[in-house]
Structures are given as structure tokens and as C-alpha cells.
């Protein structure tokens, strides 16, 4: 690993740690830039739901949905069963679905109070007429979790985070 990379990781960690140290006082939100890299699967574009799960594994909030056609939402089964139907505001946070081999960069807005408290980020991915990966990827919502590169188990190859520079 190059020197520059190490430095940037260190900076990232410090920034995240810094904000986590101060979140007790500020009950605001932080924006995280998140890159989702897909595997080279063949087929339709994938629908991905990014959700905030609490410590008991219960859906707490939909953070982001990739894919704008509501017709295919039921394909993202677990998420749809739990919150998909009820989430009225999806259109405000939905983007384009992603094809095999592509990547997508999104910005997640996460409540500072949830950090380092046993919450998890769950990425559920589904492709029309193919299987659905309810836990394609789960990342503990901790400072370390958000700094590492996390490998997926389904259509997602990996997810990487970086704090939004403008924040």
C-alpha cells in the first residue's frame, strides 16, 4: 500500500473519529460517499436497497434505493416485506439501477446518533428473474466498518466509503 493511501486512510479515520467524538453533543447527520462495485454477472440491472438495521436485526430506515421503477421493488424481497411497501419517500432517494461490472457512487445521510451503537448497514440486491440476496453485504455502522473495504456476497463485489469532502 502506497504512502499516500495510508495517509488518506489516516485522515479519513481521524475525520470519522472526530465526528463520532462530537456526535453526542450534535444530533445532526453526516453524509458518506459510498461506492458500490458490482460483480460481472450477466443479466438485467440490479435493484439495491440500502437499509439501516438496528441491533436486533430489524429494519429501521431505508437509506437509499438504486432503481426507480416501483414495479420491481417486490423483487427486493426482505426489504420490501419489511419497509418497502411503507416507505413513501423512496422517490427522493432512489437512483438508477446498476448493471453487472458497473459501479455506482451514492451519498448516504446517516444520523450521527446511530454510529457505533450496534447498528448495521444492510445492502440487499436483486436482479429480475434471478435470485435475491437479502444480505449481499452487511457493514457494522462503526468507525472501522465505514473505513474498510467490505466484500459483498451476491451481485455486489465490494463497497467503499469516504466521508463527503464538502461536509
Amino acid at each position, binding site marked *: 500500500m502506497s504512502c499516500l493511501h495510508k495517509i488518506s486512510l489516516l485522515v479519513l479515520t481521524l475525520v470519522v473519529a472526530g465526528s463520532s467524538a462530537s456526535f453526542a453533543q450534535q444530533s445532526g447527520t453526516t453524509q458518506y460517499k459510498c461506492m458500490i462495485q458490482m460483480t460481472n454477472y450477466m443479466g438485467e440491472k440490479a435493484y439495491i436497497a440500502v437499509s439501516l438495521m438496528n441491533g436486533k436485526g430489524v429494519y429501521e430506515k431505508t437509506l437509499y434505493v438504486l432503481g426507480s421503477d416501483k414495479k420491481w421493488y417486490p423483487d427486493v424481497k426482505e426489504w420490501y416485506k419489511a419497509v418497502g411497501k411503507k416507505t413513501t419517500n423512496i422517490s427522493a432517494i432512489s437512483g438508477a439501477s446498476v448493471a453487472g*461490472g458497473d459501479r455506482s457512487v451514492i451519498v448516504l445521510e446517516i444520523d450521527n446518533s446511530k454510529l457505533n451503537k450496534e447498528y448495521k448497514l444492510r445492502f440487499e440486491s436483486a436482479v429480475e428473474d434471478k435470485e435475491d440476496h437479502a444480505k449481499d453485504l452487511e457493514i457494522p455502522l462503526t468507525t472501522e466498518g465505514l473505513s474498510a473495504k467490505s466484500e459483498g456476497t451476491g451481485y455486489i463485489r465490494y463497497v*467503499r466509503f469516504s466521508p463527503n469532502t464538502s*461536509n
Partner: protein
Amino acid sequence: MTISVWRYSHLVLAVSSFLLLTLASTTGIILAFEPVSQKIQPYRVDTISQLTLAQTLPVLKKSYTEISELSVDANQFVQIKGSDADGKNLTAYIDPQTGKILGIPTKQSEFFQWVTALHRSLFLHEAGRFFIGLTAFLLLLITVSGTMLIIQRQRGVKRFFTRIVRDNFAQYYHVVLGRLSLIPIFVIALSGTYLSLARFGLVGEDKVSPKIDFDAIQSKPERKLADFSVFKNTRLADVQTIEFPFSEDVEDYYTLKLKDRELTVNQITGDILSENRYPAAVLLTNLSLDLHTGRTSAIWAIILAVASGNILFFIYSGFAITWKRRANRVKNKYSADESRFIILVGSENGSTFRFAQAIHQQLIKQGEKTFLTEFNNYTVFPKAEYLIALTATYGLGEAPTNAQKFAALVEKYPQPQPVRYSVLGFGSHAYPDFCQFAFEVNQVLAGQPWAVPLVDIHTVNDRSPEDFGLWAEAWSQQADRPMPVSSDLLKGPVSRFETLTVTNNTRTEQSDGTFLIRLRARRRRSVTSGDLLAIYPANDHRERLYSIGVLEKELQLSVRLHPGGLGSGFLHELTPGETIRARVVSNDHFHFPQNAPVVVMIANGTGIAPFLGMISQNKQQIPCHLYCGFRQSASFDSYRNFLEASQTTQKLTSLHVAYSREGDRQYVSSLIAHDAEFIANALMMKGVVMICGSLAMQKDVIDLLETICQTKLGKSVSVYQSHSQILMDCY
């Protein structure tokens, strides 16, 4: 009715896919308007074709804090994804020169989304996609079989775009539009099929992800974006997407997805880290999408919409054609064994059946036992007295599919009793081999010992009611029974009656002798030698036809006086100054040829009548040779002076006369046999042979010509008949 393999498969494919095809075409028409509606939006920047990445990217870097992706869509709208100053997600169309935001992309409308899903998968997911893919494949097969049918109908690939004969609305436009939209429909079907195959992973190759050697990544020398040589050499118009480095780390890089390959570029030095050309399958899929959706060109999208509309029309017109054809199916009241009248039909697309049915119905109405069937069902007809053969010609002078076995069957099943036959050919002069198969049928029948000709072969051009009427008149006259067709088939301009004044009548002493009668029309009408004069001797429905020769602007008939003959008796009694009412029937196929290098005329008895007129009108002095036969020289005497005078004025080149009851006792056919070489030469140099006289003479002469053509020219006489080089008008 037997139909060809291509027609059968064309129909089967259409029947099996028409529901899905209707749905796919209807939704296809709607979807074609999506690219059109996108194209009219104002996000396209004209300079995009000249801009390079080295010019564009630095500007964008400056204008936006974060860009994760830039894409250029099929409309050449440039779109970026990133985050705005507040860190919110941003997606916008921009001007690549200035970085200015031009607009925010709207989501695909729910309506188009819904129609697209219906078009692709019928809302049935995988199963639906399979059926739609199958439909596209069937459409491909329908296009191929349709093309084969057009080639067959037009007699060859070269004649693909020549004129189409119009049978009826559905048939005509099915073929005309079929030719016009052949290419777009073929493209739709082929690309649709390919997309389905790709969708099911049957043709695709996996995408290869870039392989990057991270240990070899350099962070020096640092260059400006504008100086990256790869960016200088890449035009924005060639870009599909550019993925920007996720962070400023040297291990994060630019990924350039161009039209034909994917590049990864070091974000600090501008070195190319990897380069992958797309496999052919990916390029083909992209091309198929472009062609199938019309997303790159509004004009093509509209062509696709029109072609889809045509598919709907083909479904309608195809079924209309099939329904008509099925309506022509044969229903017989009497069996083949008990019928006096046998009607044989040779037809490829069924239109000839209409005429056959009309005759059939009319005869049944008259209380006759009639049997109607296809040529290929020919067999022994033990009670048959009359045989009427109606046939079209298909391909290059070939038999229609349901008549191909006819010649063999005739040889196999000789009729036990004499049968009086008549052949009627259907066709169009638009095709070079006009009615050739009908001439062949006539030939085959003429060669049978049991077959007695009732009337000369007749042809019907473009289903002309007049042509058909001419045959019907001749037939009813010879069979001595009312006209076998109902009047509605004979619609068309009824020629008016003429009042003609007798100017001369040579009379004859003996019954069985011939005489010449001349008539003058009150008004000058266009009458040509070879036309027919219809007279009504008893002022009732009974009609008699005589060949006209036009001499000195008068109509001359040559008539043999039959004892008790209705027509000949009537004409014989006419004296100069008397008037009669008659009808001139145009007989186009037996006019003197305008452009022939040489004309050979063959006649016996009164059959010489039209030739006398033609010779007198031969002012261009086309080489003209007359072969004629009479019983004795006395019968020839009335023509002798005129013909010898014509020879001196070179309107007639040579004259050959045979007498059957005097001297050498020759028939006209022996004169022809003697000059076989000359006749063959005349035919070879596109000369025309005209035959007029009795059916028996015609039969002998045609048999002889067949031998001459076969031995000296290597072709059948029917070839010359169908090319109007042998013209006949016999009775």
C-alpha cells in the same frame, strides 16, 4: 388446394404468432415515440463531436466539487452524477464546454416503462421474455418465407421490384408493402431475436473486468488533466461513460467506457493502466439495441414505427387473403363418375377458381351434372362429354402447384369416350410467359386420341371480363347451349351495336361454297383486321362470330355457306344496300404485329379472311408469307387477284397454296413441313406465326410446329405461344 411449401410455412408461422405479434407491434409503435420525444429535448450541444476529454474534464473538475460519473447517452446528451455544494446527490445534463447545468433528467415516464415491460416480457418475467423472443424469431422466419414468396411470384431475384399484378386490395398491398418494409422488419426481427438470445445468455461472452497491476502504479510525474495524452486523443462523442476516481488515492483511477473498448487511466500521471476491447457479442448487443429501439436516430425510430404498423396491416391482409382463398374451396354436388361436364382448375392463389365456380354454378343451374376439381385430381371420367380446363401459369411459365402432375395423369388415364375439350388460360401480359402453361395443357390434350377440340384455346389477360366473355361466346356457340356464365362476371363496357351497310356480296352457286361479303360502318370506328364481328341472324340471343378483314376501310367477311346454317344463310341472302345490326368485338391478341421482322400466315378455308385485311394494310412492307389451304382451286379463285396484286406491291412476299381435293391433294400442313427450316428461322429471329382456320388444321399445324421447335430450336412450341410469337384464332 395444394399450396407451396413457402406459402404454407408463411401461413403456419403467421397463424401461430399473430396474437403476440399484434401485441408486440402495437407496443412497438408506441415505444418508437420515446426516442423521438427525447430527441426534441434541448440538452444536446452541437460541439460535442469536436470536443476532446482534455478540453472538457478540467472545466468540469473546476465547476463541480464532486463528480463520480459522466455519461453520454444515445441522444448525445452529456450527463454527470456527483454531489453539489451541500453534499447532496446531483444528477444533471450539462453543457460539456462550460459545465453549465442544462437540466435535470426526468425519470422514464411510467407509461413508457409499463409499455416497455409489456413489449419485452408481457409482465410474465422470464416466461414472457421467452415468448417474445420466440415471436421475434418467428417474425424472422415469416420475413424469410415472405421474401421467398415474393421472389417466386416475381420470377426471380432480379425482378424483385418490378410491377405487381393487382388481384385485390389485400393481396396487392400485402405484397407491395411487404417489399417496401422488408428491410426494417427484417432488422426488427433479427435484432429482437439477438437481444433475446443475449438476454438468455446464449450468445453473450462475459465482460472482462480491467486487470490492473497495483504494484506498478506510478505517482510520478504528476500531470495536468489537460495534458493527459489519452484525454487529448479521445473525443467526447466516443464516450459512453467515464467513471471518476473515487478518491484522490493513486490506486483510484479513471475508467473510460468508450464505444468499442474500456480504458483505465491513472489519475495522476495519465498513464493507461489497462485497455480491454469489448467482445463482439457486446458490440452486437449494442448495435441490436440501437437498431431495435431507434434510440440513436429519430428518423429510424419513425421508420420502425411505420414498419410495426405494417406488421399489423400484414396480419389483417394476410388473413383476408387466406379467408378468400378458403372461400374458393370446391363443393361438388355430383360425383366425377356421373358428370357430363368436367371443369379442371389450375390455380396458385385461387383467383381462377372464381371463374370456374361461376361456370360450374351456371351449368348446375341449367340442370347439368358438373364436376369441378383441380388438375392434379384428373382421372377417368366415364360419363364426361365436355372438358373445360381453366388454368393460370406460375413462376417462369410453370404449372401452378395444383396442376403439376397433369401431363403424367393424362397419359395414365385415357378417357374411354370422345370428350370435347376447351382450354382457357388466365394470366397477365405483365409477365413474359403469358399463359404458357395453358398452351401446354392445350397441347397435351390435343395429343390425346379421345380429345376433340371444341373451341380454340383462349387467354384472359388480367382477368378481363371481355376476354372471358369472348371465350364464353365461342364456347356456347360451339356447344350450342346458353352461355355458361352469369352476367355479373361479364361486367364491363358493353360494346354498342353498329349499323352496317352491305356494299358487296359475291354469293356462291353451290352450297358448301365460300363467298365474300363487304360491309361499311356508318361511323368510322377503330376496327382492325383480326377483330370479330358478332351478328344476330334471328334477332335473339343467338350470336355468330366472324373474323374481320379490313380492306379499303370496309369490313370483309369470308363465309362458307352451310346448308341450313343460321349465320351463313343469313349473310348469303344480304344484298348491297341492306343494313344489319352487329357488334365489333375487339380481339387484340390476333392483330398484325407492329414490330415483327417477318410474319408467317397460315390459314385454311375462310380462315384467310383476317389475313386479306392485314395484307392490304401492310404498308410498311413487313416480309409476309401466306400459306393457305383450300378444297379446290375454285375456292381460291375469289382471293387470287387480290393476292397476286399484293405480291407486286410487296405487301405480300410469298404465297403458298395447297388443294386438298385436287392435284397433289395436299393440306396446308404439308406446305409447312416442306418449309420447316424457314419457319424455324422465322421463329428464331422473333418472327410471328399467325394461324386462322379450322381447329383440325390448327391441331395438325401446332403438332408440326412442336416437332419443328423441338428438333430445330430445342424449345417447346408453348414457349413461342406464350411470348406471342404464335397467334391463333381458330374455330
